[in-house]
């Protein structure tokens, strides 16, 4: 086995081979990704936005669950690294014919893939895939169930670092549907690893997983109490289906008690920044005047997202010495 059994995303030298989760990702690896992304931000601002790092490599975007937005940013990132990109929306094709995840992946591996970018509705699916691919293939988790969305978490901390520099003095609040959120889980692990001393999660009890405190966060049920004096306000998307089920009464009531409005934001620090992983439900988790306001860094998040994905892809691709 070329991977570290205690942390199967690292090889035996402690280098990143797959990116599966930010849980347990060492701080130096995380910083390496953020630093490399810094350089890629420079590249994305040039006339020629391409570098030849992954020339001749094939990146397969395997999306078992639809997501145009995430798939597109991975596609742009791979193309800017000069890789060939193949997009597969498996949601509508093979698995409906009863082919298993591993069969699908084995077939694609036989097409000389170098990297799989995987999105799946089931938590842990990228681990299963990573366990069954050969040593010359890298797996990047593009979101698995409620588990992790590591590149999103990294771009969020990249954005925070860009505006706030030092994590060790920060107070961060994450608001909304923590229970179903892979973004929240990734953010929490990234922030704790980078030394953020105070992370708060805010939401009604139905949307806060039990034992969330074991991840090192504080729980607030009252929005204004939770937002008091924070430096970073991270809002989460509230899926439409949650508003219909038994976890919540209605989108309106959620907005009234947990929506980020100018008035709610006023209790945070005056220079607090507001993040959202997109796509936004305006008038549910966030008010338009906040989303488009001066404290919003939602659009920079999107462009940093490409640099982060370029950094992750080039680091894992370089970490195999076959």
């Amino acid at each position, binding site marked *: 086995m070329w991977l570290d059994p205690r942390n199967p995303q690292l090889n035996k030298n402690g280098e990143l081979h797959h990116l599966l989760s930010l849980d347990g990702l060492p701080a130096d690896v995380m910083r390496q990704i953020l630093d490399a992304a810094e350089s890629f931000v420079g590249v994305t601002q040039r006339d020629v936005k391409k570098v030849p790092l992954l020339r001749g490599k094939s990146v397969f975007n395997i999306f078992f669950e639809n997501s145009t937005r995430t798939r597109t940013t991975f596609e742009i990132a791979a193309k800017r690294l000069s890789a060939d990109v193949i997009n597969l929306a498996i949601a509508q094709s093979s698995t409906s014919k009863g082919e298993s995840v*591993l069969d699908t992946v084995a077939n694609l591996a036989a097409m000389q893939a170098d990297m799989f970018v995987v999105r799946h509705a*089931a*938590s842990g699916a990228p*681990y299963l895939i990573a366990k069954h691919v050969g040593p010359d293939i890298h797996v990047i988790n593009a979101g698995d169930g409620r*588990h992790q969305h590591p590149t999103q978490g990294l771009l969020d901390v990249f954005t925070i670092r860009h505006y706030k520099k030092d994590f060790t003095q920060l107070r961060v609040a994450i608001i909304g549907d923590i229970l179903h959120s892979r973004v929240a*889980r990734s953010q929490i692990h990234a922030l704790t690893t980078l030394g953020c001393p105070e992370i708060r999660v805010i939401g009604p009890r139905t949307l806060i997983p039990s*034992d969330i405190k074991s991840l090192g966060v504080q729980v607030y049920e009252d929005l204004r109490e939770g937002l008091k004096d924070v430096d970073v306000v991270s809002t989460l998307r509230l899926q439409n289906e949650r508003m219909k089920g038994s976890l919540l009464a209605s989108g309106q009531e959620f907005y009234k008690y947990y929506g980020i409005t100018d008035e709610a934001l006023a209790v945070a620090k005056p220079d607090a920044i507001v993040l959202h992983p997109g796509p936004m439900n305006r008038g549910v988790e966030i008010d338009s005047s906040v989303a488009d306001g001066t404290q919003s860094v939602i659009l920079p998040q999107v462009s940093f997202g490409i640099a982060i994905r370029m950094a992750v892809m080039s680091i894992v691709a370089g970490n195999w010495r076959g």
Partner: protein
Amino acid sequence: MKIHIKGGRLIDPRNNLDAMHDLYLAAGKIVAVGTAPAGFHANRTIDAGGKIVCPGLVDLSARLREPGLEYIATLESEMDAALAGGVTSLACPPDTDPPLDEPGLVEMLKYRARNLNKAHVYPVGALTAGLKGVQLTEMAELRDAGCVAFSHADVPLVDNQVLFYAMQYAATFDIPVWLRPQDASLARNGVAHDGQIATRLGLPSIPVSAETAALAVILLLARETGARVHLCRLSSAAGINMVRRARHDGAKVTCDVAVHHLHLSEMDIGYFDPHCHLIPPLRSQRDRDALRKGLADHTIDAVCSDHCPVDDDAKQLPFAEAEPGATGLELLLPLTLKWAEEDQLPLPVALSRITRDAADILGIDAGHLTVGADADVCVFDPERYWKVEPASLRSQGNNTPFSGIELKGRVTHTLVGGLVAHEA
């Protein structure tokens, strides 16, 4: 056939026996313990020096996957696994395909099993037709065909009225009802204990209240209907406490635990190991410790393998999609021994939980070495270490969370009805 099992340490919990005794078998029965009967000439002598001789094990839950699921495992493969694990009597749950809800199916299974000449098979019948939770099965007839009890296996029985009537009906005929306490709606979509690991890994969770809420209903209905209830696979400290209290108040219920729940907790899920996807879910370490203690103080009556062979295709899936269950017939003995050793319990106590206590729940005359009883015997080497390698297990299921682990205690001889059925 006369067999002399010589020089072993004989442990028979039913008869309170733990001493260096020889055992003499003839014509399928146990004919003497200690000294040979006059004129006994053995056709065969088994040297049990350094080994333990005990009753053949009784397993309260082993899925044989017949009828209908022979692509996963067959009666032949799983009965071999039973013998290799020292199990000579086993109860099989009704969740076959079709479920065991008609006397013909039960008779066929009994007939197939008998002809194999291996372990004794005791079918548990379906409580409702097709395990659909609507119509009761012909329990009395099914009992006459060979069912020892009735259950709903792991299929949720959602309608409490049906449960109530099923218990009343079973009580009419004094037929035992085996129920797994898990509230279907509280457990809906869940695949892991509602705790640290499910939170960290983002797995849909099953709260402890799914077990305790169901227990409350079952215990109430048991009292009201007078049904003989056995509770299958407790998983939580809170659940054990409820049973302990109910018994203290006079409830006549028994309960069991699966052997893997004595050793594993939610932590063992690690990076989504589908082999730790079990029903009920592995809970916290505190819950696991309570199960171990409950089994030792006999709040929990017996431990079973909860043997559940699953083929690789159904296991090699993302955690939540993987079929739950673990193969266990060959691990029941060593894992029970491991529990006893770690918790410093006397061997006779541990062996009792997989012999006489289980036989009592099943209501069968087995699990002891009384003179005159059927000669179902297990001989094992308590000091022999072996490594669990899924491919070399007899069971067709390779699915075990204990893969690669070294265990102590290996069966050397299994005798059924006075004949050597397995020899290592």
